[in-house]
Each structure stands twice: as C-alpha cells, then as structure tokens.
C-alpha cells in the first residue's frame, strides 16, 4: 500500500517537472519562464521527495528527504527573486503584450 502511494507521488512529481520544462520552452519572456519553472519544478521535486519519505518512513533516508523539501522551499523562491531582479536591473524588456510595468515607472520617476 505504502509503495503504491509513494509511486503515485513520484509520478505526479515527475509530471509537474515535465510541465515546468514545457513552460520553459513555450513562455514568451524570462519573467513568465521563471514563473513556470519555479512553481512547477518546486512542487514536482517536492512531490518526488515526499514519495521517498512515504516509501522509507521516518528512517535516515526519509528524514533527509524531508529536510531537502524544507531547504528547497526556502531557497527556490529566493533564487527566482534574485534572477528576476537582476534581469530587470540589467534592462531586459518585458514581453510586448505585457499590461503594465510599475517597477520601470517608479525607477524612471526616481532617476
């Protein structure tokens, strides 16, 4: 029974990882690509690790998987945040059909 549930989690995780990769190819600009890759890949990888936790229970391997989930959830958004900020600061434009860019407006107002 545990094996089946663990396998379901791992398969769902791999599927979300795949969606993240498809999003990386299909999205038009870097900010949307970051959205797709951060969200889907974070949940996908967490799903795989959670499956490992269910399979091994609270043993040495399972607890390491749990710690990996925690560190992944703490660090993945931070790296996405740093990438987005650095990209915007180095002057990469948003997609043509974007609705608004309040960040650029505020920076222009300051300078």
């Amino acid at each position, binding site marked *: 029974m545990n094996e089946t549930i663990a396998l379901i989690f791992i398969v769902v995780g791999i599927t979300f990882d795949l*969606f993240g990769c498809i999003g990386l190819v299909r999205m038009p600009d870097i900010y949307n690509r970051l*959205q797709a890759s951060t969200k889907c890949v974070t949940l996908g990888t967490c799903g795989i690790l959670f499956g490992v936790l269910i399979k091994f229970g609270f043993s040495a391997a399972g607890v390491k998987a749990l710690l990996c989930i925690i560190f992944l959830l703490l660090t993945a*958004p931070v790296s996405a945040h740093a990438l*987005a900020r650095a990209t915007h600061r180095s002057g990469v434009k*948003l997609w043509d059909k974007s609705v608004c860019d309040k960040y650029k407006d505020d920076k222009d107002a300051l300078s």
Partner: protein
Amino acid sequence: MPGASWGFKKMYSKVVTFFVSFLIWTLLCFSLDWQHILIGGLVSSVVALMMGDMFTDYPKKWFHPRRYGWFIYYILVFAWECFKSNIDVASRVLHPRLPINPGIVKVKTCLKTETGLTFLANFITLTPGTLSVDVDPENGYLYIHWIDVKAQGLEEASKIIISKFEKISKEVFE
C-alpha cells in the same frame, strides 16, 4: 544599561543558533551515537560562536508557543496555495493559446522586519501566478510580476495578492 541588555541578547541568539544547527545535524545523521553527538555539538558551537549574531535579530521570538501554532497553520495554507498555483500554471502552459496577460504591479505591505518580508516574498513567489521582483523595505512596497493581471491599482492589487498571507505572516514573524 543598554550595554548589558545588548550582550544578553547576543548570548540568546547564539543559544538559538546552536540549538537549530544541532537539531538539523541530528536529523541529517539520524543516529544517537555518542561520536555523532560529540562532533555535532562541537561544530554547532563553532557555528554559533561565529555566526550567532547574524542568524536572528530578535531571539526571544523563538520562545513563543503561539507563533508555532500559527506556523503550522501557515504551512497548511502554504501547501494548499502551492498546489493550486501549480495546477493554474500547468493549465496555462498546456493551453494551446497560452492565456497569459503579464505585467509588473506594485503592492503595499505593513510588514516591517526582514524575516517577515522574506517569508512574505517567498509565499508570493510560490502562490498562484505571482513572482516577487523587488522589495522596497523603507516604504513597504513590493514589486510583483503577475502572470494574469486583474487589477493595476495599488489597493486592489494588494487586496487580491497579499491580504490573506499578510495577516498570517504578521502573526508568525513580527
């Protein structure tokens, strides 16, 4: 005496750092062998002595049980929102016409501490269709890339994106 209270606070924060790093070490080793505990204690003491002041600004917050209760609620809300956001983004990615309507909006938050702002920004990044780009801690503004812009104004956007998480983050981290 400001000097004495400052030293006390520093010692507190070193103790907190020691216990957190020792706990993580024990979980990673996952054995209660005396050799592991000895090495873990030594390494955690060195880390606490060197980095103790950087880890936490307000060490007394670690001793409030109410915060832990709110933290569990935070994790549950977080997991649910994270799941919803993944369904949302995956459906957009797989949709043949790619239904996105992106833009960067500005929202206002009332959180002040660095920890609170960090966790709010992380929460925003992992919830439906939003990604924090930059933060202006002096005025409490966050710039957020939104994959499907529903409102451009400051108040409306703040209400839609952060009003719910802000309250929980405030209870846990401020």
